[in-house]
């Protein structure tokens, strides 16, 4: 096993689609890296941008927000709201030097395979970005 940098990812997943999709990956025994740790939320619309910031300040190397596909939100527009926040949040993270570390994906309850792919891809992207610079502060 390679002993290089292993990014730590926090996932904010909506309980209706993406969390169920992640569960399906399990039920179908689709393998993906263990870097992601999931926080279950009622909806991506519940993802307070400040929580994303908090995850990075706490040292996470990446944050994945995943919810229902457009039109499938259990609460009609939570994913839309999240996508609106995401647009700005990304820019803010760029300014903080944390660009590319936040990812927003739509994963349905039937897309276990897709969830695994998303995680795999994100881990690779983060490996090339290196560790969260906040963790390097003071070193």
């Amino acid at each position, binding site marked *: 096993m390679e002993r290089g940098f292993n990014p730590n990812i926090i996932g904010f997943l909506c309980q209706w689609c993406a969390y*169920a999709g992640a*569960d399906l990956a399990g039920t179908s*025994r689709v393998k*993906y890296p263990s870097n992601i740790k999931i926080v279950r939320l*009622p909806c991506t619309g519940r993802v307070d941008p400040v929580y994303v910031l908090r995850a990075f300040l706490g*040292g996470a190397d990446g944050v994945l927000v995943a919810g229902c596909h457009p039109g499938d939100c259990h*609460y009609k527009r939570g994913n839309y709201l999240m996508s609106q926040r995401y647009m700005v949040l990304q820019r803010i993270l760029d300014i903080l030097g944390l660009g590319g570390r936040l990812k927003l994906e739509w994963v349905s309850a039937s897309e276990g395979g897709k969830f695994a792919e998303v995680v795999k891809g994100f881990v690779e992207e983060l490996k090339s970005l290196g560790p969260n610079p906040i963790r390097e502060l003071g070193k």
Partner: protein
Amino acid sequence: MEGVEKPRIGVYICHCGTNIAGVVNVKEVVRFASKLRDVEVARDYTYMCSNPGQELIKRDIWELGVNRVVVASCSPSLHEKTFMGTCEEAGLNPFLFQMANIREQVSWVHENSFEATEKAKKLVEAAVNRVRNHESLHIKKLGVVPAVLVVGGGITGIEAALKVANSGKKVYLVEREPSIGGHMAQLDKTFPTLDCSSCILTPKMVEVGQHENIELLTYSEVLGVSGFPGNFKVKIKRKARHVDMDKCTGCGLCQEKCPTRVPSEFNCGLGVRKAIYTPFPQAVPNVPVIDTEHCLHFTKGVCGVCERVCPVKAINYEQLDETLEVEVGAIIIATGFEVFNPSVMTHFGYGKYENVLTGLEFERMCSPSGPTGGKILLRNGREPGRIAIIHCVGSRDENYHEYCSRVCCMYSMKHAHLIREKLPNAKIYEFYIDIRAFGKGYEEFFNRVLMEGVTFIRGKVAEVTDYAESPEEEGKLIVKFEDTLLGLVRRLPVDMVILAVAVEPRKDAEEVAKIFGLSLSGDGFFLEKHPKLAPVGTSVEGVFVAGACQGPKDIPDSVAQGSAAAAEAISLIDRGEVEIEPFTPEIDENICVGCGRCIAVCPQEALTLDEERKVAVLEEAFCKGCGMCVASCPSQAITHKGYTARELLAEIDTLAG
């Protein structure tokens, strides 16, 4: 959490046989967990969800004073309810519980035992840190108003209303037209049994009209709905009939004497009605309305004949629209459908050639109470010798409706049969793509019509034209088509063409959806909760859809759905209470500044601004707990019960570090 006893957390790691333990080093997770702050006890067991497993938890609650529980096992979607129940049985508030998903999201997806164990430890630690901040929650319950609103008085609505009313509950049946009956009242015979449509419908309509539990609101529309499942408030507009319902005896004298003739909507414009009218003789209620757009009194201020002739002085020109508000526990939407207007498909010549009819128009022609008294006639009064029936007009056509309208094959064959009955020598041609005769007795009916000498031609009709290419085509309608079985393009001269037009959503479906908070599916019909398992449910609890407003349906299916929706409504009312979402936001009025951000994002319109106090106010019963308001509040004046900032940040911090 002032005044709350010190957290004593019990952590329970499940082996799930070898499902978890085969990959995750459970013993190590237990060792790790037992050292975490506030952890009173950490245990593992082969199957935590089994009775002995649950007993372990209960005993610790009783004997060790465990007051917070973490179970690390499968996905919460499987056993969260189970373990919450365990806590509750042991006398612990079930919300002082947190689950760590180490099967679906660890052991089943990660092969490396070391990594899986490390992740399981992290998830357990996060759950421990989170549960430390959990607070007791209590599920609130509210009563249910024992009344049902049924919207739409077609066969579906009638069936639903009768079923609910017969169970002893109050029904408000709202119908936009002056009479109930819907499309079924317009039909002559019904396939495949050939029952006379009005003969089987009229008794039901009369029953509705006379039922002590049904308040029939015809010529009325729903303006708006507020409230929440079990307690809806419905605003209904009763349009002015200009005829006093209490006085009118339905003698019909006014209709007889009224001088103004208007094309009859009920007869698809083929016949006429008066400006004061009941749409058809069996109308329920049998009280006419004045059509103010055409009535001379309203348009020119003259006439007044109806007022003069009415023996009971029931005519009231001054009557105004009324708005009433009713309270109901459940709502059944049965607003039905419209038929496709084929004039946009110009190649069929509808609207251009007078003997090209829609199926519904032909239906009226066949009806003994229709414009021709039941005779099949061309516009010139002669009987047609050759009749073409074209299937799938507007259905199964990407340009119009991709779906199959489900009833056209059958009603077209019924039309063929009716023609055969009335005109034994007529030549009848059915142009079809596929015959869909899927219901009970339908295929048998198809065979019967085949035996009755109806010619079935598999092929799409390219055009209906009056351009004759030979003497025998002169004065005829020529159907140009491709016979796909023969592979030939052919021409067929006929006298009459009947278009089997599609069933489509009502034009105002979107507005209606808005009023009731429903969604539309891609085809424009109302979206059901689940196509198979909740066919009459909707995304709004307590609101049900039934019949053709959800998608094309024949009468048996519509009736079945009417009954199903009635059962759902009765079941909700008989339960007597509705549970309110426990994970609702709580607004701290000392922090809220009333900026309105939460109100703007709430999808349930559960939040409003108290203008006086300048704070947002939550109608808890409307809330579905999504938490969008919480994430939008800049002051964090809103606490999301079950997902508080403390709880989530404890979890996030643990996972991030």
